[in-house]
C-alpha cells in the first residue's frame, strides 16, 4: 500500500483531493508534489486538500504543503485545507503556518469560500 493515497474529485470548479496516509520525506511528499503539479498543468487552480485521513506529517510534508501553497498562489490559484487532525493543527500552530493557510472543518464552508 502506498504511503499516501490521494483520491481526486471535482466539486464545481474546485478540485478536492481526499488524502489518507502519511506525508513524510520520500514517497508521501513526492506523491503530494506530483498531484499538485499535475493539477496545475491541467489548469486546475482551486484546490482543497482534505487531510482527514492524514495521521502523520513530518517537516518535509509541512514543507511540501508550503511549496504547494506558493506554487498555486503563483498561478493565481488558491489552496485551502480541510479537516486537519489535532496533531496536524498543533504542528501548523507552532510553526505559525495556521495563520498562512485557510483552514476549514466543514467541506461546504470550504467550497463556498472559493466563490
Amino acid at each position, binding site marked *: 500500500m502506498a504511503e499516501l493515497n490521494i483520491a481526486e474529485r471535482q466539486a464545481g470548479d474546485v478540485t478536492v483531493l481526499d488524502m489518507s496516509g502519511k506525508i513524510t*520525506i*520520500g514517497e508521501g511528499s513526492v506523491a503530494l508534489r506530483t498531484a499538485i503539479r499535475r493539477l496545475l498543468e491541467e489548469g486546475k487552480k482551486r484546490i482543497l486538500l482534505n487531510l482527514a485521513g492524514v495521521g502523520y506529517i513530518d*517537516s*518535509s510534508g509541512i514543507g511540501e504543503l*508550503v511549496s504547494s501553497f506558493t506554487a498555486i498562489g503563483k498561478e493565481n490559484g488558491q489552496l485551502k485545507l480541510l479537516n486537519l487532525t489535532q496533531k496536524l493543527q498543533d504542528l501548523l500552530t*507552532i510553526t505559525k503556518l495556521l495563520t498562512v493557510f485557510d483552514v476549514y472543518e466543514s467541506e461546504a464552508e470550504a467550497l463556498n469560500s472559493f466563490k
Partner: protein
Amino acid sequence: MTVETTELTLPSRIETVAAAAAAVAEFMSRSGVSDDAAFGIDMAVREAVTNAVVHGNSQAEDKVVDIVLKSSPDAVEISVHDQGPGFNPSEVPDPTAEENILKTSGRGIFFMRSFMDEVVWSLPPEGGTTVRMLKRR
C-alpha cells in the same frame, strides 16, 4: 535502577527514517512511554534521522547512521550519530521568524526542540555529528 539500551546501525537511505521510527516505536512500547510522549519522540527521531541521512551523510552508501536508545525510569534518551562533515545548529535560521514562515525547509530541528526536553549536538573526535535527545517521563 533498570536502564534498557538498544543500538542500531542503519544505511544512509531515506527508508532508514521509517525503519528507525519503527524500531523506536517498538522500544517505547516496551518502555511504557505515554502516547503523547511517544508522538513527540517519534517525530523528533524521524527528523534527527532525516538530518543524519540527508544532510550529514548525504545518502552516501559507504556511511551509516548509528542510533542508541536508552530507557530509564526517569527518561528516554535517543542519540543519532552520522558520519558527515559536522553540523552547527546555530546556523539554522528560526523557521517561525516572519521572513522564514513560507520557506519549504528548515523545520526539522525546530520540531526536535519542540517535542523533546533536551536536544544537544556534539562533534565527537572520531568525526561526524551526534545529536542527543532526552524526553523526561
